[in-house]
């Protein structure tokens, strides 16, 4: 099976092959290195004119990408670690996402900023964070987080070539070596796919399972842990869940409603458990639960979050494991809800 890393690399190669307006800017991109996580490997050899290895200047390369996008190119900016996205926040908030609307629709910024996020690699407090929640809710910014249920590289290729608005593309770094799952790997599950306005949402339940008592929702790497938890809850505890995995984190549907697949699952189960690797408060899960409360009112029987500790992510393996949400945390929360 293809790994997430290989898939993303193929997606970039496909975008470069398909459209001469695609450029890549980032740090340490040149072969044989091909970027710190190797997602960009092979591109600098094949497209030396369009792959620009840059100084350690995250804000400037995001701005340069924005300028290129403003003038009709389709640049991709690679940030070596998602933690460094804070250096790009001004460009993202005050220019990249502002230009299309504040210039009265007369400008567009088809820029993809892609970056790895997440822990479990022992990189410590400033190279392990899941910071995308800081960038959810910025008007005009599409935030995508691929998973193993559909082809991450194809999503990236489409984001580069088909999106006329800026995209923040989050790659969980523990997902890179994981296989993109084929039908055989997912044989135990009944899967429904909703297309969304750009990126799919997958709903999974075990084949032959009774109506769900609980809805789990997770994205990126946490969807892997949630899938494992869903299976164990069924076989070890006879607790039947549905798992809803969005690929697009923002924008959400207008008027405060849930993504339709999530709403459909919740209409059956009445219970919602959100699972994320970002810190607990004021995050992605909080927004899902707020929308669930707004949409379902007293029909919402139980609502909880599993998330990371509200502390810097420790470098020590044992402490890092304790700080980040695990399958066991999901099992415990789920059992307390039903």
């Amino acid at each position, binding site marked *: 099976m293809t790994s997430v890393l290989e898939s993303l690399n193929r997606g970039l190669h496909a975008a470069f092959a398909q459209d001469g307006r695609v450029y890549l800017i980032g740090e340490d991109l040149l072969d044989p290195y091909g970027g710190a996580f190797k997602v960009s490997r092979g591109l600098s050899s094949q497209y030396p004119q369009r792959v620009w290895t840059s100084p350690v200047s995250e804000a*400037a390369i995001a701005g340069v990408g924005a300028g290129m996008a403003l003038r009709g190119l389709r640049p991709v900016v690679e940030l070596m670690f998602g933690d460094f996205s804070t250096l790009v926040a001004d460009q993202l908030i005050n220019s990249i996402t502002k230009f299309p609307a504040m210039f009265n629709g007369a400008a567009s910024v088809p820029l993809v900023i892609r970056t790895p996020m997440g822990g479990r690699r022992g990189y410590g407090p400033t190279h392990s964070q899941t910071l995308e929640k800081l960038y959810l809710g910025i008007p005009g910014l599409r935030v995508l987080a691929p998973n193993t249920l559909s082809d991450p590289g194809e999503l990236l290729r489409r984001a580069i070539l088909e999106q006329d608005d800026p995209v923040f593309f989050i790659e969980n770094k523990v997902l890179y070596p994981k296989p993109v799952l084929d039908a055989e790997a997912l044989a135990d599950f009944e899967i429904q796919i909703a297309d969304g306005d750009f990126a799919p949402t997958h709903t999974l339940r075990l084949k032959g399972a009774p109506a769900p008592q609980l809805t789990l929702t997770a994205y990126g790497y946490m969807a892997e842990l949630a899938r494992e938890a869903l299976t164990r809850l069924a076989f070890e505890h006879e607790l039947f869940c549905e798992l809803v995995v969005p690929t697009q984190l923002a924008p959400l549907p207008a008027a405060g409603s849930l993504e339709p697949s999530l709403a459909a699952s919740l209409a059956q189960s009445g219970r919602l458990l959100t699972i994320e690797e970002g810190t607990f408060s004021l995050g992605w899960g909080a927004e899902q639960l707020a929308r669930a409360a707004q949409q379902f009112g007293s029909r919402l029987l139980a609502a909880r979050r599993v998330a990371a500790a509200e502390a810097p992510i420790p470098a020590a393996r044992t402490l890092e494991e304790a700080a980040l949400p695990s399958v066991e945390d999901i099992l415990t929360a789920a059992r307390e809800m039903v």
Partner: protein
Amino acid sequence: MRAMPDHAALYRQLYTIRRFEETVLDAFPKGAFYGTTHTYIGQEANAVGVLAHLNEGDIVFSNHRCHGHFIAYGGDLRALFAELMGKATGVCGGLGGSQHLHWKDFYSNGVLGSTAPIAVGTALAEKQKGSDAITVLFLGDGALGEGTVYESLNIASLWNAPILFVVENNHIAQTTPTELALAGSLAARFAAFGIPVVEMDSNDVAKISSAAQHELAELRATRTPRALVLNTTRFGPHSKGDDTRDPAYIEELRTRLDPLTLHAAQLPASERQAIESEVDTAVAAAYAQAEADPPPPANHLAKVAPP
């Protein structure tokens, strides 16, 4: 490249910017506008002198103090008044306001320094596309406090971006004098990155125009970055009424360094008066038209920024 503009044409532009900005400052207290503004009075020769040498398709990036750049670029007075008034006919339909303008290849943003990497990106894009367009980026001395400017100078030089950095050093950032904000030499900042720099101490539009013509010709020939540091004067407040300087000092600056007075000497009095009278009429007419223009439709925001 355009021919060197004649003295009358230069004076007309200087005077148009001055009359526009004076009209803005006069009308603000009467409630004609909403929000704030940053006027260009005293710095007119920079925009007029530099932008006299633009070609069609060249890109201009400006800052919060952008009215003069916009007018010198060829922007419409009624559309600019309307933008400040929040009218549908404004440059950006009322969405941008005084410091966020975009028309043709002109862009401005009010976050200091943020435009530097974007402007470099536009210059690199045009070079990649094989067009002849170059980018002119206006920065004030205040923007030189922002780190992203230096990242951008480094990248512009490394990657040979066809861009002219124009620093308008008006010696004051909001209320903070330059000597309290900037260490070292202003020109040396560019030289350190291998960017050729010319520094001028003048409000004389003919001299600035001549220097800009030379710099832009070199830039077009080499397709590599250059810089022009223009030491200048701001006669007005930072925005509307926040000038903390001694009025006597500003009066002294005006007497000695007003770019309009300096250039008026190049024209017969009758010709100068005729220009002034025509411009007065045009600015007043643009203001009246903008005032009569309708506000944006209530659903306009949803059209450009779908929920």
